[in-house]
């Protein structure tokens, strides 16, 4: 229950179906018309029998067959992409994450060699990621892959920028510019493939939402410049994350790709609070690599659905050896979540946190303090920017 209003008299034709101590019409319905209503949320997990209520409505009342599966989606998406692209050429923006990989595989299935994948090293990637992405895609996708090192271009565009929304917009715009340049180099390319997911689509059409505020501009959608000259192909725009994973499995994507933690489009730029510099990138990159390595060693990587390090714009006093230090703070974030819409912080074992903290302070120059983020979403978000 989450409302200031409640129903005092149900409309003609309706009969009361359930009540609470305070609500006479917790549920009601007009069976002849097949209109039903509940004054609670059957879609949230902690509502007992919520799933049954939805199942009854969908299967028994509406008569849906209940045979849909995320894998059905692959063949439909392939057809849709074929009819959208026709005989023209497309390039796919590979980020290294599961979304763009699955999008690429769908489109590759649809148009074969007329898809060229472009991987932009924006200088904001995790340690070793660029090399790994190139190697794995060339092995598994067998599609033409162009790798572009645009580190300098991105870092100079980000110089002195501290506002998270500005960072996202700048990075989104750079991405598109680089892709356009590559597309022109490839000749007659009309389409840009992106791994935009359904929640991004819903979130970014926030103006439609009655009162839902825009939480963050997603770089895949909201940050696109209006004058972009490539047409967008978004084969995953009706899928949720776990459905993309199921489709990835269906398409033969290796397990390590399918289960890779989500990584924001703007990359480490939104995991560095404040200005993005090569030095600060190196700090957060090393800290993140140590954290992820220790999680994998402790066999906790999969259980955390997203884990990363954040470099805070906070310096604090410390003591190392005989000297006083005044250095940066790393925040560790690890969450468990089913759908990334709500998330709880992972209850990591103290021993693991201790090992990560010790290693970061000892091995990453410029860090003397490590903190662990114990906020859930909501009210916090998973990422810090």
């Amino acid at each position, binding site marked *: 229950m989450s409302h200031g209003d409640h129903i005092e008299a149900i409309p003609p034709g*309706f009969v009361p179906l359930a009540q609470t101590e305070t609500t006479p019409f917790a549920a009601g319905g007009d069976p002849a018309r097949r209109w039903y*209503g509940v004054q609670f949320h059957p879609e949230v997990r902690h509502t007992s029998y919520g799933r049954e209520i939805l199942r009854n409505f969908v299967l028994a*009342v509406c008569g849906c067959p209940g045979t849909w599966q995320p894998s059905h989606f692959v063949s439909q998406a392939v057809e849709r992409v074929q009819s959208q692209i026709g005989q023209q050429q497309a390039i796919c923006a590979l980020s290294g994450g599961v979304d763009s990989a699955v999008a690429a595989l769908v489109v590759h299935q649809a148009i074969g060699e007329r898809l060229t994948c472009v991987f932009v090293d924006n200088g904001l990637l995790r340690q070793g990621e660029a090399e790994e992405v190139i190697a794995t895609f060339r092995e598994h996708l067998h599609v033409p892959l162009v790798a572009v090192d645009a580190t300098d271009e991105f870092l100079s565009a980000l110089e002195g920028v501290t506002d998270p929304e500005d960072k996202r917009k700048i990075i989104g715009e750079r991405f598109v510019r680089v892709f356009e340049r590559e597309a022109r180099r490839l000749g007659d390319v009309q389409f840009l493939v992106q791994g935009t997911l359904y929640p991004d689509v819903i979130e970014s059409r926030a103006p439609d939402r*009655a009162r839902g505020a825009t939480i963050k501009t997603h770089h895949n959608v909201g940050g696109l410049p209006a004058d972009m000259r490539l047409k967008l192909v978004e084969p995953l725009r009706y899928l949720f994350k776990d459905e993309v994973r199921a489709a990835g499995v269906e398409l033969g994507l290796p397990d390590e790709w399918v289960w890779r933690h989500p990584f924001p489009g703007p990359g480490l730029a939104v995991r560095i609070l404040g200005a993005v510099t090569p030095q600060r990138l190196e700090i957060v990159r090393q800290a993140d690599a140590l954290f992820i390595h220790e999680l994998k060693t402790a066999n906790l990587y999969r259980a955390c659905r997203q884990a990363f390090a954040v470099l805070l714009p906070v310096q604090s006093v410390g003591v190392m050896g005989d000297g006083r230090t005044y250095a940066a703070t790393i925040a560790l974030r690890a969450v468990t979540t089913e759908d990334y819409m709500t998330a709880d912080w992972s209850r990591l074992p103290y021993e693991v946190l201790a090992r990560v903290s010790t290693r970061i302070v000892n091995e990453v120059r410029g860090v003397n303090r490590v903190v662990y983020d114990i906020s859930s979403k909501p009210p916090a978000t998973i990422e810090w920017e």
Partner: protein
Amino acid sequence: MVVVPGFWLEPNEGGEKQSGDSVGSVSDVGIAVLDFGSQTAQLIVRRIRELGVYSELFPYDVAEATIRSFAPWGIILSGGPASVYEPGAPPLPSWLHATSLPVLGICYGFQRMSLEGGGRLCRLAAANTGPRRFRLRQAKTPCLPGPPANNRSG
């Protein structure tokens, strides 16, 4: 008996899926969820898909033609942050009153359905938030689960 998808269509047109922006085959089309602004609106879509039924979220004021081309088997009205008495509180789309599709209203969706259907609402002094136990008033109904009678609502 199989319910014909797209209840607006005449029986002889039934099952004819019009080309739309969304999915392909008729058996894969399921439930349209109308979004009245609740943060959990997309959770409804997910839960429906988990039941093996395709679902999509549409703005609350979606055009009838869009829903028609989606050809759903039923419609769910999401919750929303507004009070039905607030000026500018989102109304049900007018075409909904004429549909013969089954409809499930959740929170705001049910309250709006009640208000527009001739029921009466009142404003609670304190918001009715957090878990409550609810008791079934009627044992047999196709929509609600049977006993145990005491359930916890969110």
